Every structure is written in C-alpha cells, then in structure tokens.
C-alpha cells in the first residue's frame, strides 16, 4: 500500500500555510525544491553556493582591493563605512553560500543574493551613466567572463546571477514544496 500523500494541494488549500512553517526544514523531510521534484533547482543552488563561496573567499583574501572597488563607485559612503563594508559583504557572500546548501535556508539566501545583485547592478548603471572606470575584484583575480572596467558585460552577468538567485528563492518555499507543477498523483489502488 502506498502511504505517501501528496500534501501540495492541501498546503495550497490552507491560506498562508507556507508562512506558518518557517522554522521547519520541511524540504529535507519531504523532498522539496531542489530534491527529487526539481533537481535543476538543486544544481542551481549548488552552483550559486560555489560561486558565492568563491566570491566571498577571494574578497577576504584582499579586503583592501575590495574596499577600493567599493570606494570607486563614489557612493558618498565615508571611508569608515567602506572599510567595514569590505569585510561584511564577503561574509554575507560566504554565509549565503552556506545557507544555500540548506534547503530550509535557500529561500532567504536566494532573496538576499538577488537583492545584492540588483544593488550592484544599480551601482554599475550609475557608474556607466557617470562615465567612471571601475575594476571590481568581485572574484579576486578571476575575471569570470568579464574582463576590464565594469560595463555591459558585468551588468548582464549580474542580471543572470540575480535571475538564478530569484529562481532559487521562488522555488525553495518554506513548506518544502517547489512552485513547479506537482508530480502526477500516485496510483493508490
């Protein structure tokens, strides 16, 4: 007898059901986003985790270079704040990378990273509008597809990473179920 119950319809029927279980690692129990239901989401999470772990690690190797990259955006932040941001942002990358590996934490991590990418995207647009040349050691000495001063290539790259982070955030719901169409109901006969 097959005792497995597809609880997705039930969850959908309960208004606010997904907001009531934020602290459960449901997906790990029931196989949610990134597990059997959507292996590509799992791969996306893993890819983003590796990318941001590397990004955070490489920035922490040379915080001075990253601080100057932040400074070059000419946002008006005082040096005191820039010097601290040069440490906090890489740690945020690292912690988000770690969180992406835990299904219950992938949604908040994806949301933060998408927001971070949008923020940097906005800053790149402002750089281009002001005609400033900034070289970002975003991945240390590794260029990751885009070389030279920040420009359209970096904007597209950021957009793609933001989109991937959004997909992860959207797919990894706290209730443990993917937003992807549910699997066909099991034959209970």
């Amino acid at each position: 007898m097959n005792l497995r119950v597809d609880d997705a319809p039930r969850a959908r029927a309960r208004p606010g059901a997904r907001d009531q279980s934020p602290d459960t690692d449901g997906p790990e129990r029931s196989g949610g986003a990134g597990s059997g239901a959507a292996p590509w989401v799992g791969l996306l999470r893993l890819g983003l985790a590796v990318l941001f772990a590397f990004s955070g690690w490489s920035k922490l190797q040379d915080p001075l270079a990253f601080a100057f990259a932040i400074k070059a955006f000419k946002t008006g932040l005082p040096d005191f704040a820039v010097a601290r941001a040069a440490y906090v942002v890489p740690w945020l990358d690292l912690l988000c990378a770690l969180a992406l590996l835990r299904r219950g934490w992938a949604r908040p991590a994806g949301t933060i990273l998408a927001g971070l990418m949008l923020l940097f995207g906005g800053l790149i647009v402002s750089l281009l509008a002001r005609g400033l040349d900034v070289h970002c050691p975003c991945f240390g000495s590794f260029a990751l597809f885009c070389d030279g001063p920040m420009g359209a290539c970096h904007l597209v790259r950021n957009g793609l990473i933001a989109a991937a982070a959004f997909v992860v955030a959207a797919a990894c719901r706290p209730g443990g179920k993917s937003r992807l169409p549910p699997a066909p109901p099991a034959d209970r006969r």
Partner: protein
Amino acid sequence: MIRIFLILGAAAAAGLADAAIRSPLKLDIDAPAAARATEGAPGASAAPASGRLTLAQARELHADPSAVFVDASLEAEFRSARIPGAQSLPPDAFSGGAIPDVLTMISRDATVVVYCRSDQCDAAVLVALRLREFGYAQAVVFEAGLAGWAAAGLPVERGP
C-alpha cells in the same frame, strides 16, 4: 523573513569581528614618515611632506633623478600615454600577494610618485598604499594624475 535578518545579522557580526581582528584598513595615504627620517640626505629637499602632491611638487620631483614616477593605470592606458620616464604598476600587479617585477628596479629609499589617469581614479592611492606595505615609505600620490599633468602643458610620452 526572520531568516533573512538572521543571515544579514550574522554577516554583519562576522564582518565586523573580522575587521576588528585584522589590522584596520587604511583607505587614504598620509604623509611619508621616512621623509623626516631622511632629512639632510641627498634628494631629501624634494621629499614631500604630505602624502598627496600638488602639480608644482610633482613637477619638481620629476626633475629629481632620485624620484621614480609610477603609473597605476591599466597597461593599455599606460602604453597610450604616460608621464615621461614613468613605470607601469597597475593595482592588479599585486594580486595574490605577488611582488611586481618593477619593484626590483626601485630602491626602497626612493620617493615614489604614484599617479593614475585623473583625480577621479583611486588606483594611485591603492598602489601607493601597497608600496608602503612593501617598505616604500616615501610613496606618495600625485592627485591630479596624467590629466592634470597634460592640462598644465607638461610633456606626455605616448606609444609602447
């Protein structure tokens, strides 16, 4: 939502703790301490008393054979135009803790004048700070950069 704030809070705590443990980041160049120490030595009259040079001070140092000019722009930019006699030393040359080759040709006692394209780029300050880390206590920044130099009608070297 709670987890978003937990991650943000943990990152802030870890980052600030890391910043407190390591030596604080200096993002500006101060007066070279060695300028006072070498007072009376040959070339010391031209040693700058501030970390940032004016055009007149840069011009004076350019005439001093003991001073070295370093261009912190990208290699391609350096090849297109530079202050005559300048050496190329972009910030990337220090990546991974590497010691740039050009440093083998520069004495640690020399006054090193670092500049970049204009007063809008911070690469010169970054390179000067790196040079200080490597023991070049008299590394200073020519803030106006190549743009200020050229605008004053001073000679510019072009080509590879």
